[in-house]
């Protein structure tokens, strides 16, 4: 796997096309690291010139901001923007919708103006222009349901790219009861990921997982490392982890891709 850092690239006088913002989950969470790798493999296959910030990357501040700690968020944002502004690249791509939303929508007024896309958008483009080719066998006719991440779908109105990708591997997309603009949250956003839920009669991730199971899909496609965790936990709770798997769209595309 070839993963250059921006620092290395710039020392060699190179500017990558794309800066891959890995995100904290993608860097540290065991499950999410696999997604990161799948995505990088795809970037390598498609011969994309990209780089990561590596140890120069730091939390975007999203969980702090949404927990109400605007101060900590802005400290993170301002120093990230300083790092980002010291390099040249054309686009930022991220596998996390929270990083995507924050850098795209909230960094500009702090001085960080970038062209930011979500990895499903990039992959959709790469498949469309033939840079990534997929075979039909692995997922053909398989029932897959897609869980819209709140910060990709509702917040940024990207519903198509991930669905195009599911279509491109010839899978049978089964929509859940609530999807797209009305997609039910997995329960992780707004810093809920890091705390226990308030008292209620059900956990949000379980409710969402049940909706996914109800579609009879064998795969729940996710586009966010946090949704991935929440839904995987939901499947365990429902004792369905043998029958149903949660895969990131990048993993699906990677499994179907040909060299």
């Amino acid at each position, binding site marked *: 796997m070839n993963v250059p850092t921006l620092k290395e690239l710039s020392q060699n006088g190179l500017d990558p096309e794309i800066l891959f913002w890995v995100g904290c989950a993608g860097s540290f969470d065991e499950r999410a690291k696999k997604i990161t790798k799948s995505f990088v493999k795809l970037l390598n296959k498609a011969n994309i010139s990209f780089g990561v910030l590596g140890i120069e990357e*730091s939390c975007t501040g999203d969980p702090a901001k949404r927990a109400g700690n605007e101060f900590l968020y802005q400290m993170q944002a301002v120093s990230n923007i300083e790092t980002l502004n010291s390099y040249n690249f054309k686009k930022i791509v991220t596998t996390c919708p929270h990083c995507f939303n924050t850098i795209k929508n909230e960094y500009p*007024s702090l001085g960080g103006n970038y062209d930011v896309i979500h990895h499903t958008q990039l992959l959709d483009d790469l498949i469309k222009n033939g840079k990534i080719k997929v075979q039909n066998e692995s997922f053909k006719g398989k029932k897959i349901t897609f869980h819209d991440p*709140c910060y990709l779908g509702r917040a940024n109105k990207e519903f198509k790219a991930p669905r195009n990708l599911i279509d491109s591997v010839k899978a049978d997309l089964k929509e859940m009861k609530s999807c797209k603009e009305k997609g039910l949250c997995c329960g992780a*956003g707004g810093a809920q990921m890091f*705390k226990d839920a308030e008292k209620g009669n059900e956990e949000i991730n379980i*409710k969402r997982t049940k909706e996914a199971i109800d579609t009879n899909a064998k795969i729940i496609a996710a586009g966010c490392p946090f949704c991935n965790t929440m839904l995987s936990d939901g499947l365990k709770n429902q004792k369905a982890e043998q029958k149903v798997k949660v895969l990131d769209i990048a993993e699906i595309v990677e499994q179907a891709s040909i060299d």
Partner: protein
Amino acid sequence: MSIFSSVFFGFIFISAISFFVFNCKKILRNINIGRGINRSDNKKQRFFNMLRLAFGQSKMLDKPFVGFLHLVVYVAFVLINIELIEIVIDGFLNKHRVLAPYLGGFYNFLTAFFEILALLVIISVVVFWVRRNILKIKRFISNDLKGWPKTDANYILYIELVLMLLFLNMNATDLYLQSSSYSDYYQSYGYFPVSQFLSPIYSSFSDLTVLYVERISWWSHIIGILFFLNYLYYSKHLHILLAFPNTYFSNLESIGKMDNLSSVYNEVKTMLDPNNDPYAVSNSNLPIEKFGASDVFDLNWFQLLNAYTCTECGRCSSECPANQTGKILSPRTIIMKTRDRLEEVGKNIDKNGKFIDDGKKLLDDYISKEELWACTTCNACVESCPIGIDPLSIIVDMRRYMVMEQSSAPTELNNMMNNIENNGAPWPFNQLDRLNWKN
């Protein structure tokens, strides 16, 4: 007699309008308690949004059946009120159907059109009542509607029903009187496709009785309308007016974008500035702005306008993941409590001339921390509101207060924030291990 009637009408009409204006001013004053926020940009797009959402009710049609009925009631109500022009002129001049001679055949069309609208309103209102009281649709029976909100919702339906019935009865008796001994006053004007079926009810009554019934209906109808106008202020029905400014001023940016607090930005800039002398005396004389919101004073005027505009329809709460899974958070309640507190503050100002501390706050006294911490910031509430209300922004502003002013976040969140502060990730991993995934 005729002078007395005109004077009486004038008195009622002018008092009703004055009281309405008086309350409108109060609403305006209360909304202006809020902090400033600039919503004067993109006038064209704002205007278009208002047409689409408030006038065209485009989001209401997400639920096609009720959306359609709501549209019927709304359009009918607006159009029927055109009839008020004539009623008011009649009232002042003590005349009857004063405009009829000038409009000729068009007058017949109008009367017929209004009657059909009235019938449609009656049908819709009955359906709404059944949905609320017999079918008990979930979003109409939840706890946050107990008490006044539930009563209010039904009162609105009853008032609309009674007004429409009075309107039709007024026409039915009018039609009767047009061929009675009073026909020189009740001249043969108008075409009444609905009330012509009611008119026969009066065939066994004396002309005088019907005359009384007609007059009573006429007066009750106009007094009812003026009453309804003044009822708005005390009711969720205020949305029929405020939906317009609310959609006009609503957020035009991506709903994922949360504002970057400028007061914080200034501090962050200074802290990160390498030339900054941490021991220097602050050279700004500006008072340090409070971070976040603990009371209505700390919210912006648009959020306060939201509070007055909310229709209490509960679309937001029925889409809310926290609410759907039994947490006490309900975005509708957040908005309703904000209005309750704002009203309380308004009354305090009415009484004392200015706000005198009453020892209460929006936070804790109206909205609990438990509610605020249950939100996933998923934006489902914002997306589902048909008139551009943003409950999430209030939740986040109150979280900001709890975290930055009170340091009262749940321990787990404090741990998460400490991690971000110390090692740049919400978990306790070493920043230097960030690239280890590639091995």
